[in-house]
Structure formats: C-alpha cells, structure tokens
C-alpha cells in the first residue's frame, strides 16, 4: 500500500503514466501528474492533481518543486516516463530532433531528480523509478531513443551512488500496447504462428503490467531494491539472442 505517499509522475497523460497514476491512487497515494493533458484526469478524484510543467526547462522544474514543497513538504515517489517518441532513420536525422530526444528522454529525469532530491530525502523510504523501453538494448531499433535510454539506464546506477539512501531503479518495458508500440512489431506478433517463439509469454504487454511493477517498486515491499533494472517484457528482449537486454 502507498497510503498517503506523495508521488510525482511525468508522462502522466499517456498509457503507462496514466495506468500508474490510477494504480498509485488506488493504493492510497496522492499523485501529482505532469505531462500532456488527458480528459481522463477529471475522473481521477481529489487525490490527483495535474500540474502544468515543461520538464525540459529547469525554471519550470523549480516551480514544480516549490509547489510540492509548499503543499506537501515531502516527496516519496518520483516516476518518470518520456511521453514523446523519436523514430526514423539515421540518414534523416537533424540537430533539432537529436536535441529534442536528448531533452525529453535524458535531461528531464536528470533535472527532475536533481531538483527534487531534497524533498525525496525527507521521505522515510523514497523511491525514484525511471521507466523506459528495453528496446534500448536492441540494435537498429529506434536508434535515437535507444541511445538516450541507454544513457538513462546508466544514470540509474550513477544516481544510486550520489543519492544515497534514496533508492533509484529502472523499469524496462517490452512490447506494450501503448504509444511506444511500433506498428510493425504489433503486426509481426499478430502474424506469428508460434507466439512463444517471439514472446515467451505469448501476448503483448499492457500498461497495467508495467504499472504493477511501478507499484511494487514504490512500495515498502521492495525496500532492498536499489540500482536495479527490471524488465517487464514477457521474455521478448530478455531471451532474444540479438538483444543486449538478454543479460537481464
């Protein structure tokens, strides 16, 4: 249970972020949501608060921090997920796309954790969780996202060292039915005769599958988890011989 814990979730307007917000609320937490507006927010009840914030702009983040500090005085859970996608071939990339990917995938979690560290330190058992696709470990797959997501994976261990005793973990999601899921992967799975040869769990994942793990990592039950990168992918990347993700 997350009774009265204060959680900040970025990317809250899309699949996994929204599913996680719902789950945290169900577990008794108060949730501050940042990201694109979604009309479902209206039904989330009094323990949910939407805060408009550009998470790539440090001034905005400082305002967010001041708001949380004033209203709650503490932050127990910081969960980030990038709600933008950066696809396309290397031959078509331009500097602006590179900058945007860097900002949204990497700058945002780094600046958020930097600025919110003191509020997290006031929690009895703070938990920082970075969600990112485990396709980051696959060559030729959304290469630009992968570059920055791999850097984020490394940031998990770097942050663990510097944020002691705040625990920092990563959730690596596989082929989940959300905005990250590429059409060709969805079609390939639909056409696969033996589903288990592609995904051992024989199904695509759901946003709730990821929210379940996000909940476990926010909960005291996982208090010895630190600096861990945990896959939730039905075995797709973790058993794939072509994926560096198979070392998890």
């Amino acid at each position: 249970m997350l009774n009265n814990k204060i959680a900040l979730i970025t990317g809250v307007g899309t699949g996994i972020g929204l599913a996680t917000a719902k789950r945290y609320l169900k577990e008794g937490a108060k949730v501050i949501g940042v990201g694109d507006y979604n009309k479902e927010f209206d039904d989330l009840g009094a323990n949910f608060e939407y805060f408009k914030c550009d998470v790539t702009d440090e001034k905005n983040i400082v305002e967010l921090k001041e708001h949380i500090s004033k209203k709650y005085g503490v932050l127990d859970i910081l969960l980030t997920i990038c709600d933008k996608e950066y696809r396309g071939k290397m031959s078509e990339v331009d500097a602006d796309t590179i900058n945007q990917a860097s900002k949204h995938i990497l700058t945002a979690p780094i600046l958020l954790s930097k600025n919110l560290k003191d509020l997290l330190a006031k929690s009895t058992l703070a938990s920082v969780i970075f969600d990112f696709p485990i396709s980051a470990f696959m060559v030729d797959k959304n290469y630009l996202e992968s570059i920055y997501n791999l850097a984020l994976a490394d940031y998990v261990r770097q942050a663990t060292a510097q944020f002691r005793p705040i625990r920092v973990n990563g959730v690596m999601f596989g082929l989940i039915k959300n905005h990250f899921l590429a059409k060709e992967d969805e079609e390939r799975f639909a056409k696969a005769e033996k589903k288990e040869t592609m995904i051992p769990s024989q199904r695509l994942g759901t946003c709730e599958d990821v929210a379940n793990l996000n909940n476990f990592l926010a909960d005291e039950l996982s208090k010895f988890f630190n600096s861990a990168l945990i896959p939730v992918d039905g075995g797709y990347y973790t058993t794939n011989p072509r994926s560096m993700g198979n070392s998890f």
Partner: protein
Amino acid sequence: MIAGATSGIGLSITEMFINEGATVIGLGRNFENTTHLGDHFIPFKCDVTDLDNLQQACDKVKELFDGKLDVMVNSAGVGIHYSPTNITPDKFDFAFNLLLKSSIMMTKYCYEYLYNAEHKAPVIIHISSIGARTIVSNDILYGMCKSSLNLYSKQCAGGLPGIRVVSLSPGPFITPIFAKSRSPEETKQVIQYMGTLIPSGRMAEPSEIGDLVSFLCSSEASYINGCDISIDGGMLTQHS
C-alpha cells in the same frame, strides 16, 4: 514445491507461502527449523543431488495434489569456494550436481505438473546469486553454476511456453550460510562493514526475498518472464 526449504532464503520463501495460505512441499535434509510451519507444510527428506530421491519428491505432487503444481522454487545450495588451482573432478561434480543439475532435473520432473496448475499461471523460480554476474577468481564453480542457471532459466522461458520462468539473484542477505563460518562478534562486524559497501546502507533480511517471490508469483507480475532479477541493495553496480 520448494527445494532447500529448511533454512535461509528457502525457509523465508516457504514461510511467506505458508503465511499467504499456500500448501508447500518442502524438500530438505534437516527439518529442525520448520516445526512452526503447521499442517500446510509437507516435509520431504531429499538430497537434491540424488536424482532418484529428487524424482520421488516431485512425484509427491501426483500422489497428494492430483498432479497439479502452481509454483516450483529451487533454493537448495551452499557456498562453494574453490580457486582454479585447488579444483578437483569431485568438487566440480559436487558443485554442478548441487547448483545446476538439481534445477534442471527438478524442472524436468515438475513441468507436467506445472502445466496442470489449477490457476493456469504456473511459475518457476530459480534462486541464483549476484555471483552469476561477478567474477571472483576464488569462487569459480559457484559463479559458473549460477551464471549457467541464469541462462537455463531464460532457455526455459522459451522452451516451456505457458510457464513463467525467472531467476533471482540475491545479494548480501543475513542467512545461516553467512554466519556459519564466523563467530557472532565477527558476523556483527562483517554485517556492519557490508552496510558501508551497499547503497541501501545495510544487508537484507531473508524475509525481503519472500516479499519479492510473493510479487513474482502473483498475477501482478504476469508479464515478467525470462529474466534475472537482482535484489542486492545496489551493491553490484557500485562495488569497487
């Protein structure tokens, strides 16, 4: 069914299952520490390196539960410390029989029962170690067996569709193995020292792995498959 159910991590996992209302067939050699577990604990004396004995234990599922099994955990093992210079064929066989072959054969003896699982969501958990991911020259057999076990676990995820297979790699837990070779005073000192090496600032209590196994065997974790999950307070990524 839990092998190595009578002490340390295996006992904690057994206690968790009993507390959560499960019935456990516990494999072990000495049941002094399991008398508090009540009627839902079924002890079966078994040396997991004796394959006839192991098969008899697994066949208890047929006899007692109509061949239906929801969860299989192998936590049997001991620390095995040999360097490249003092290894012998007997030590090699002992390590691989205990730490690897027992898991492979237990899976073979149990998989049909797992496919019969009442709740249709069977899980196999192999207890590995962060030793699988580190290179310790004086622990060659232990590390080799555990990294092979991680690989085997992944192979099973694809090879046994419908059964979730996960390996767990615990870091420093305060278990009897840990205290066995030290005086109480030394144990205390080492526990304190280890705390300084671990980002979480402490070693873990065995019950904490029970919480993890509880999560992994529940429907909450139904999409976690074919992976190795380390629970080490962050030690491995920071150890210098």
